[in-house]
Every structure is written in structure tokens, then in C-alpha cells.
């Protein structure tokens, strides 16, 4: 596959109350954005266990994003603060794992920000396209 044809697979964990509704708004408003994202709805970005992100990469995602509510907007008051802390440390750890920074993103979008959601997807798709497919390295084991 030439790099020009490469259409990344991006797994997006979106919270039920803000970002998922934002993605919904992007859809109902007929906002055009890259067809790269596979959305998984979770009740809160605070529900996103770092295990999910690692598993997404392990199962072939080229990029993973976690999108929650803006600070102060969390339906559960502080779920997105917890997510912000976890994703910050996860980001440091992924860097050490040799996974490029552009492949992982934690961001925020409210229910009224369909455009912002589309922008996040487009920006991320662009970056992951530059990086190319995520290829798992194993080296010689025999």
C-alpha cells in the first residue's frame, strides 16, 4: 500500500454526554470529516482504562483518541479530571514504548462542538497519515 492510499484506522473513545453528542451533531449537521475514526461510546472519559488504549493499538489501530467533556462540564463532576491525569501519564508511557506522540491524543469537545470534533479527527488523521501504519515490532525470536 503506498502512503498516499493509506487510510488510518483511529479508535476514538467518546463520552456519552459531551463528545459523543458532539460527534452526533457533526453527523446531523452533515459536517464532512475524514472517515478514519471508529467511535466507541463510553459513559465518561474517566471510564477509559489505559488498558483499552493499549488493546486498541495491539489489535491494529494506527491511532487512538480519547475525547471527553471540557473541564467543569463532566456529567459525573470529575471524571474528565481523572481521565486527564491518566492520559497524561499514559502519554509519557506510550512515548517510552516507542509509539509516536501523534498516534495518541486526549482532547475535549462539548455536545455543541460538532465542528471541533470534526477538526480533531481531521488533524489526527493528517498526523497519523504522516506517520504511516502502526507496525508491531518483534524482531528475531527463533
Amino acid at each position, binding site marked *: 500500500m503506498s502512503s498516499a492510499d493509506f487510510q488510518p484506522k483511529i479508535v476514538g473513545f467518546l463520552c456519552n454526554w459531551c463528545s459523543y453528542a458532539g460527534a452526533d451533531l457533526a453527523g446531523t449537521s452533515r459536517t464532512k470529516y475524514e472517515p478514519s475514526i471508529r467511535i466507541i461510546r463510553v459513559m465518561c472519559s474517566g471510564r477509559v*482504562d*489505559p*488498558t483499552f488504549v*493499549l*488493546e486498541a*493499538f*495491539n489489535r491494529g489501530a494506527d491511532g487512538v483518541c480519547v475525547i471527553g467533556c471540557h*473541564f467543569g462540564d463532566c456529567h459525573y463532576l*470529575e471524571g474528565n*479530571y*481523572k481521565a*486527564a*491525569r*491518566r492520559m*497524561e*501519564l*499514559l502519554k*509519557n*508511557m506510550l512515548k*517510552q*514504548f*516507542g*509509539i509516536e506522540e501523534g498516534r495518541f491524543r486526549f482532547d475535549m469537545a462539548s455536545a455543541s462542538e460538532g465542528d471541533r470534533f470534526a477538526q480533531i479527527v481531521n488533524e489526527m488523521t493528517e498526523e497519523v497519515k504522516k506517520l504511516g501504519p502502526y507496525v*508491531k*515490532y*518483534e*524482531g*528475531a*525470536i*527463533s
Partner: protein
Amino acid sequence: MAKLKVAGYWASSCGGCEIATLEIGANIVKLAELADIVFWPCIVDGKYKDVEAMTDGEIDLCLFNGAIQNEENEHQAKVLRAKSKVMVAYGSCSYEGCIPGLANVANQEQIFDRVFVSCPSVDNPDKVIPQTSYQAPEGELTLPKIYDTVRPLAAVIDVDYFVPGCPPTGEQTWAVLEAVVTGNLPAKGSIVGAGTRALCDECKRNKEEKKVKKFYRTHQIMPDPDRCLLEQGLLCAGLATREGCGALCPAAGMPCTGCYGPPDGVVDQGAKFMSAVASIVDSNDPAEIAVILDDIKDPIGTFYRYSLPSSILRRVQIK
């Protein structure tokens, strides 16, 4: 009753598991009455060819410690699997990779370069590195090939039971030996001699509220003797680690480093440990959160100290 045949082996490991088997104490006399040790490089004299000459299933129990990092480790694992009725991954290295598994942050080429060439205390101007084969005047000398990725035992052979720990405690070791002697074997694939919950459940320290403004390394503070170590900012892996050791390290004032592996229901110990640590950071300001978490300089070595080869990502990506 005929005497049982017991074997042991060390692959990529430190030798501590062998010493730990002696922690069965006076039971060692009982073991000698019940079983013959037919092969165990560290403990009795034996040759690889003697094991290869045995019939399949001749050995009743094999306690295999060490991860699979080279050709020889893999070959011996396969031979001993064929010759043994019960194969036990004994200790953290064979169960999940352990300290040798941290080699997965690099590959064979990088490791050789570091150890034999670029390490500041090494003087090797000709850049001589080990070869798998060398023609000496007396004949060919060989060394087993080192792999790029370290794997736990179960990634190369079928394993019957797992005994976690770095090293396993004496009671656990005896529990396995006793199970084989009495024929009272648990379900295949079981983790033997440890509990199912997190270590915090058996740790006696007082747990209050977990909110941390700064993380410390063990040499930086004198922890309160009674309070939870994680609450004091020490990176204690108890909440992502299987119980069973009796919380020996926290009782001695040292944080748990996670050698018993993940508790039941946890796939990736490092991810859970990391998640728990991050969520107790006492700040809602992204900039401050980044500063607090920046004190954790080596996330893989901290969160995956024993489980990198059996984690979801298994190793660091190298281009």
C-alpha cells in the same frame, strides 16, 4: 509408592528461584524421601543428554524458572515439556518475564552494543561482540543465539501451573510439591500458592484518603511506619498486584514492586498500576498534573517491572 522424579531448570533468570526453593525448610528432608531430583543444573549434577535420553513423560514434575531469551532457553523448555507430566512456570521470570523481560525495551543489537561496546566502563576498541559460532584451532565453539524479544514460558510451550513471585515464598513452593505428591492437582492453568485479590487486602498499613501532590523514590523520604505507602507518595504496586506473599515489602517499609503479577481479572498489570497512580494525583490543573507526573522518570520500569513480556504491548517498538 515409587519415588517421584522431579526436575528443575533455569532459563533467563538470576538463580534466586533456586535459592528460594530451599525456603521449604525442613520439608526438604521430606522431599528427599518422596522424590529423586533427576535434573536441576544449579542443584545437582546432570547433563542435557541425560534428559534427552529419557522417555516422554518420565519426569513427574518440572519447576521451570527463567524467561525465554535465547535458543538454549527455548530448546530446553521444549525438551523438558516433552519429558514432564507436570510443567510449572516457577517464579516471575517464567510466569511473566520479570527483570530479564525488561530487555524488551531494546533488541539484541542494542543490548550487545550497550553491554560490550558503549557502556562507559567497557574498553573494547575493536568492538568485539559474542558470536554464535567461532572457529578455534581446537574446533568450533558455539553460543546460543539471543533473541530480540524476551517471552514468558507459556509463549513457547504448554504450561500446567504458574507460581508467581520474585522469588516465590517457601510456603508456595511446598504447596506445589505437596499437590503433586498427593495427586491433589488444581485445574490446569491455575496460579498456585497465591490469592486472587490485590495485595492491599492483606497489607496491614492504614489506608486513608489517596491524594498525592508529589511522588518520591524510596531513598527520598522516611515513610510513616503505619500509613499506606502510596498515600505517602511512594509508588507502591500493591493495588495492581496479586496477594499471597503476606505483603512482606510494605511491612518492611518498602513499596511493593509487583512481583506477584496481576490479580484475577486484570489483563495488564502495568496499565492498571499506571491508571491507579495517575488518578490519585491531587490536582485539576493540566500543567500541574504534568509536572507531578514528570517525577515518574521510567514508566515502563516502574509499572511493568515484572510483566513487560506478558503485557498487552509486550515490548518497546523499534524502527
